[in-house]
């Protein structure tokens, strides 16, 4: 049985992941910024959870790094220890919007890269103190290559992917398993209103794949899985092609 802290479990892929964990009997503490949303998600998880499952919530805002350590400490207390930390929280905006609004662009870069790394550093220390644990963080296929529609968001995710790879190299032997999730396009609130590209996925299917990866300790997981092939092809494309391509 796992004791899981999820930052971003109120909506989207995080919601699906939290549900799968409690359905199979794992304990979950939700970290988030909105008390009301946390309460509603807790009730949902309690109703769905296997008998004896424990669900808790605590405040944590990815925009406020000072909230990270207290939140993780509270989480440890609520579940009497944490062995798995999942981060799905993040911001997204179209390249168009980020070019028009530098203030928001800075916020996105801060939240999706700097603050996420800071949060992971806190989580890493806590997990290493226990001797072992899993840190599963949502990056994106957008971080695999600089591309026109995701110049800024992709840069943040590229930084995050690089950090997670480094972490995995450095700490796996000490017991910290790092899982970097690279979703392709997935239907969630984050992507609603965007035109659906090919190979779009559903949050429940991503959750299934992610939990399998967490259990197996897979360092990088593309979800839906087809995106691994798609990104391999895109990474192999010469610059002059990418410069012309719209994607």
């Amino acid at each position, binding site marked *: 049985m796992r004791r899981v802290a999820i930052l971003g479990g109120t*909506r*989207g892929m995080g*919601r699906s992941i939290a549900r799968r964990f409690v*359905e199979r009997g794992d304990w979950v503490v939700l970290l988030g910024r909105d008390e009301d*949303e946390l309460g*509603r*998600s807790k*009730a*949902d998880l309690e*109703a*769905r959870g296997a008998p004896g499952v424990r669900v808790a919530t605590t405040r944590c805002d990815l925009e406020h790094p000072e909230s990270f350590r207290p939140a993780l400490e509270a989480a440890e207390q609520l579940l009497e220890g944490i062995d798995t930390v999942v981060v799905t929280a993040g911001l997204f905006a179209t390249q168009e919007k980020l070019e028009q609004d530098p203030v928001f662009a800075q916020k996105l870069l801060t939240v999706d890269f700097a603050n996420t790394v800071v949060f992971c550093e806190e989580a890493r220390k806590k997990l290493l103190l226990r001797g072992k644990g899993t840190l599963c963080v949502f990056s994106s296929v957008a971080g695999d290559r600089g591309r026109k529609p995701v110049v800024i968001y992709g840069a943040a995710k590229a930084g995050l992917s690089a950090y997670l790879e480094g972490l995995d190299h450095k700490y796996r032997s000490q017991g910290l398993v790092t899982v970097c999730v690279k979703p392709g396009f997935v239907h*969630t*609130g984050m992507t*609603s*209103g965007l*035109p659906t590209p090919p190979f779009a996925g559903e949050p429940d299917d991503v959750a299934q794949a992610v939990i399998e990866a967490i259990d197996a300790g897979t360092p990088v997981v593309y979800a839906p899985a087809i995106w691994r092939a798609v990104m391999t092809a895109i990474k192999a494309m010469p610059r002059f092609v990418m410069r012309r391509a719209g994607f």
Partner: protein
Amino acid sequence: MPQTRIAGWGRQFVEGEELKPETLDGAPPVLFRGLGRSYGDSSLPAASSPLVVNTTRANRIIAFDPATGVLRAEAGLALVDINRTFLPRGWFVPVTPGTSLVTLGGMVAADVHGKNHHVEGCFGAHVTRLKMRVADGRVLECGPDLERELFLATVAGMGLTGQILEVEFGMRRIPTPWIWQESERVANIEEYVEKLKESAKDWPMTVGWIDCLSRGANLGRGFLMKGRWAQAHEAPAKFPRELPKIRFPFTAPEFLLSQATVKTFNFGLYNSHFQKKKVGLTDPFRFFYPLDTVLDWNRAYGRRGLTQYQCVLPDSAGTGAARKFLEVLSSRGGASFLCVIKDCGPESAAYLSFPRKGISIALDIAIRSDTQELVDALNEHVLNAGGRIYLAKDQFTRPEHFRAMESRLPAFQAVREKWDPEKKFKSAQSVRLFGD
């Protein structure tokens, strides 16, 4: 917000905009829709107000009390999700439609009925509370004993009285997750109806299908199926395995859509649906939702799509009315191969609830140039017999026919007028039928 094409299960597309938020709190005051399993235009935006809110991401359970079985959840929660969580724990919804790919909001707004209508009535009869947002923006609760008028207009109200945010209803304890089923062959429509009514005395669930192409003395030959939840001593201790899902891979091209292919498909589908001559155990997935194993099966009907015609013929019209219905159908070239006939118990107090004491007949029809005339002809017969059609399936009924069939419509409209005088909540269907 980009324009998208939105359709009901019958694949009649309209242009619109569809929001799909995770929380319904800040949703704009427009029509809500769920999983779009109503066949016709009930869940489609009116041309004059193209925005709709899809509720399917608002799918959290709010509370479940295992002592009483009372479940409260956000309106976008899907029945398939409820079953996945609660069937293994020995709970089931009191009323289920023939597909589990529906939301709680859709089940209330259409006041769905199942194979147990003669015993349990419609889903709305089991609803204890609705949390709604009405046209002036207020969020309020209603139920059988609270804002009763609004409640009775919202159940079966097809989304026209306001937005259902949360639904609270009573789940039922089941002895096992297995079904005991018996079926028998029936020679003609008269015998079918007689046996259907007779079985109602002993069986909580009944349904069957008849062959709509047979004629004369054989007219209406078919199968009648009866079921009940199996008792512990009759059933295995293990949980039944669901059938693997397959997806209909493409929209069938026109050349595949000859009468014959559609009929064969229709037949195959229903044949797998309603297992022949069988006495013994089956599972709830096969028994209630056999069509759910083929995802997107409506694509088999091609680009023009399909409609379902469903009506209720009251007992007062006699079995002659059922025979006459089939005659009208076959005189129009047998648009459908099979009809599903169910037993209906007493009418609900919800103003627009479809069932009334009698039998319900439902048939899938591939859309062709003469579909309007076919529906008109069937409607005239149903009107003469004192029956009515089911809005959740309808796309073709004329307003004058519906008005004549539904004597409670003025009362419904009066409640609607009170709660939504500006008609913020309207659908393509309400424009077509009620002139919104």
